[in-house]
């Protein structure tokens, strides 16, 4: 077995006893290099086709402006929905001094209720009589309705 290993050592230096024709490698190298196909995409890669023009400031900020406008619109819509769904919370009275002054003026309110609110004044008097509010009222300055009626008849 040792002898056989020696045989392998002995043959190692040869190319397995194979040969090539004279000048084969030089000829092959020359032919091979000459026959390499053209590869324009490798050897002449295209330069960037378009040099994009510089964008103006407005063009650069436009997307952000549009986005801000969109959010503002959404916020306004939410506010509108809130107002519609909670009308009592429309505005606090302190924030509307004209309305506060009008409601604080008793004469104005009485005139409003009697003349403009479409409420029958006799209904108000009946209500006041029912809850005893009329006892606090001073009717001394008023003419007797019965007298007025008789006078009217007499006239």
């Amino acid at each position, binding site marked *: 077995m040792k002898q056989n290993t020696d045989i*392998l050592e002995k043959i*190692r230096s040869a190319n397995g006893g194979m040969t090539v024709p004279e000048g084969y490698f030089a000829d092959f190298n020359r032919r091979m290099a000459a026959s390499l196909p053209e590869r324009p995409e490798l050897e002449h890669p295209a330069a960037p086709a378009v040099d994009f023009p510089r964008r103006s400031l407005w063009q650069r900020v436009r997307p952000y402006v549009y986005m801000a406008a969109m959010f503002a619109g959404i916020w306004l819509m939410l506010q509108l929905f809130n107002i519609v769904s909670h009308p009592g919370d429309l505005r606090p009275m302190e924030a509307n001094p004209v309305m506060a002054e009008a409601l604080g003026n008793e004469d104005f309110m009485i005139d409003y209720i009697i003349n403009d609110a479409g409420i029958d004044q006799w209904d108000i008097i009946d209500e006041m009589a029912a809850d005893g509010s009329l006892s606090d009222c001073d009717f001394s300055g008023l003419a007797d309705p019965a007298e007025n009626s008789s006078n009217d008849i007499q006239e």
Partner: protein
Amino acid sequence: MAEIPVPDEALIQRLRDPATVRDAFAEVINLFSEPLYWQIRRMVQSHDDTNDILQNTFLKAWGSVENFRGDAKLSTWLYKIAVNESITFLARERKRAGISLDDQEAAIINTIEADKDIDGDLLSLRLRKAVASLPEKQRLVFNMKYYDDMKYEDISEILGTSVGALKASYHLAVKKIEQFFSDDD
């Protein structure tokens, strides 16, 4: 036995530069044509077939030279292409002749006996026949280790087999060749 050349870093850089890639690849051909030739020849035995496979090897390498990133050895990359081309050729020949993998051994021995490009050394001729009797994978491992003295790590990268399996494969191949010579004597 052809030494496996080690290309310098400048050549690798020139392969990556579009302006110099063609000249650099011509240099790669000059460097590697001989070791690749012998690697292929030891597989297919015939000079004419080897010549065709070597051309295909370089054409394939040229067609995908941009894929060579330099993180692997240039020699490993080229050997891998050459080995694949050789195996593809042998498979095509089997299919063309309608023979099995086992029967191809006899066909290769016939090719060896018909080969005219030899130096007449009978011992070498016997070794070629002994190597031809090995299974395809063992033949590849034996050729790379015995003739080219390649590192197992490099063979592992080329063949995609673990170093341990390659060592076992080479050991088996040597045993079979020794047995071949013993039986022949």
